[in-house]
């Protein structure tokens, strides 16, 4: 017994190394295959506040550009509003609308790693929930993954775990938008059948098959396409509308019918 204890004490550094390595490997490998760790992410109080204060300072540098972007968007929305037929105006009663939109500011962005996460400055207290869709004025950005009381992390479309329902705008054929971690301006659309006619430059939008994003949110345009190894489906490179390196303000979309859809789906599966 004495000798065992001596042995452990003599090699305590090796044991410590093994022990800590094991802990971190468990954290890492779990997050490789499942969701981002619930406890160790940048939506927490300390990290959120550090990023928040840094963003307070750095956000001043792009104010003019950001203002122009928002004015252009307002212009576009006004145009749509004025040209709308009167009888198609949505009821303003908030209980009748399907989607709620919230806004937030981005305090940390990342696009160089294979699994990119974005941190925003709003959380549970401001009504942010897990699995809300995140978009910008130009297009799709990601899905909320972890929420703390005042901050939240967003799984970017530039994440190898991301998988979003998308379709070709003119033909209604849908597939999945994924990312192969090679270029941050390009995502990949897979599972589009071979018989679909494709043209470089076609617009890709969200498909509305999931309860996260509404239909027809812009994603990007087709840059190049070829058939996959089996020859039955296309692999399409989609050039994203969003400049993922330069994002300041985002919108969060909540589908109010999500609970109902989920409950219905669960019931259908169980029967």
């Amino acid at each position, binding site marked *: 017994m004495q000798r065992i204890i001596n042995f452990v004490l003599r090699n*305590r*550094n*090796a044991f*410590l*190394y093994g022990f*800590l*390595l094991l*802990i*971190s*490997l468990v*954290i*890492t490998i779990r*997050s*490789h295959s499942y969701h*981002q*760790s619930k406890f*160790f*992410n*940048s939506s*927490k109080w300390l*990290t959120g506040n*550090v*990023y928040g204060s*840094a963003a307070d300072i750095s956000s001043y540098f792009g104010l003019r550009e950001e203002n122009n972007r928002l004015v252009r968007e307002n212009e576009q929305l006004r145009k749509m509003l004025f040209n709308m037929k009167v009888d198609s105006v949505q009821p303003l009663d908030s209980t009748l609308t399907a989607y709620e939109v919230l806004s937030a500011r981005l305090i940390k*962005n*990342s*696009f*160089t*790693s*294979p*699994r990119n*996460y974005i*941190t925003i400055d709003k959380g549970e207290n401001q009504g942010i929930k897990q699995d809300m869709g995140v978009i910008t004025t130009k297009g799709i950005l990601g899905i909320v993954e972890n929420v703390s009381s005042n901050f939240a*992390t967003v799984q970017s479309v530039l994440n190898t775990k991301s998988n979003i329902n998308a379709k070709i705008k003119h033909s209604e054929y849908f597939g999945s938008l994924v990312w192969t*971690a090679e270029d*941050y301006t390009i995502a990949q659309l897979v599972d589009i059948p071979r018989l679909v006619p494709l043209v470089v430059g076609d617009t890709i939008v969200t498909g509305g098959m999931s309860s996260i994003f509404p239909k027809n949110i812009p994603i990007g345009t087709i840059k190049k396409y070829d058939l996959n190894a089996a020859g039955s489906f296309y692999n399409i490179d989609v050039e994203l509308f969003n400049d993922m*390196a330069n994002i300041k303000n985002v919108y969060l979309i909540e589908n109010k019918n999500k609970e109902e859809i989920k409950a219905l789906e669960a019931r259908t599966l169980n029967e």
Partner: protein
Amino acid sequence: MNNTVFLNSLRFVLLILAQVLIFNAMNFMDSINPLVYVIFFYWYPIKGNRTLFMLISFLLGFMVDIFSDTMALNAIASLTVAYARPVIMRFCFGVNYEFQNFSFKNTTKVQRITFMALLILIHQLVFFSLEILSFAHILLILKKVFATGLVTLVLCTLFSSLFSPTSE
């Protein structure tokens, strides 16, 4: 002694902040974010308690991880570098680093840069292999290790000459 503890605590905090606020947002040539906090392992006193050093390194890596949403990749890389540091030192400075009166002042510039380069190489190799975790992407891993490692080395050399430790 107290001075060393204070100095290293300050370095710990400042390096984390510098890493997550400045260097993680650097995106040099679109994809290079140097992991500059590796210089902590270069600066840390040679004669300190090795167990404590490993614990601190693990914590340093883990803090950077929490900030940059990288699971525990930085923690693993830092821990490995801390564990391997005595071996690297023996390789770079010969056996005389174990003597009482050893200090960086008696070493040549080439020795110090080799030491730093090896620390960075091990750190980046562990980090990127686990981040990508696929043998099919071995070329991508090597490309990233080389590009990021080179920028990190340049920055760390600059840092070490700018803020050279005087009392050690």
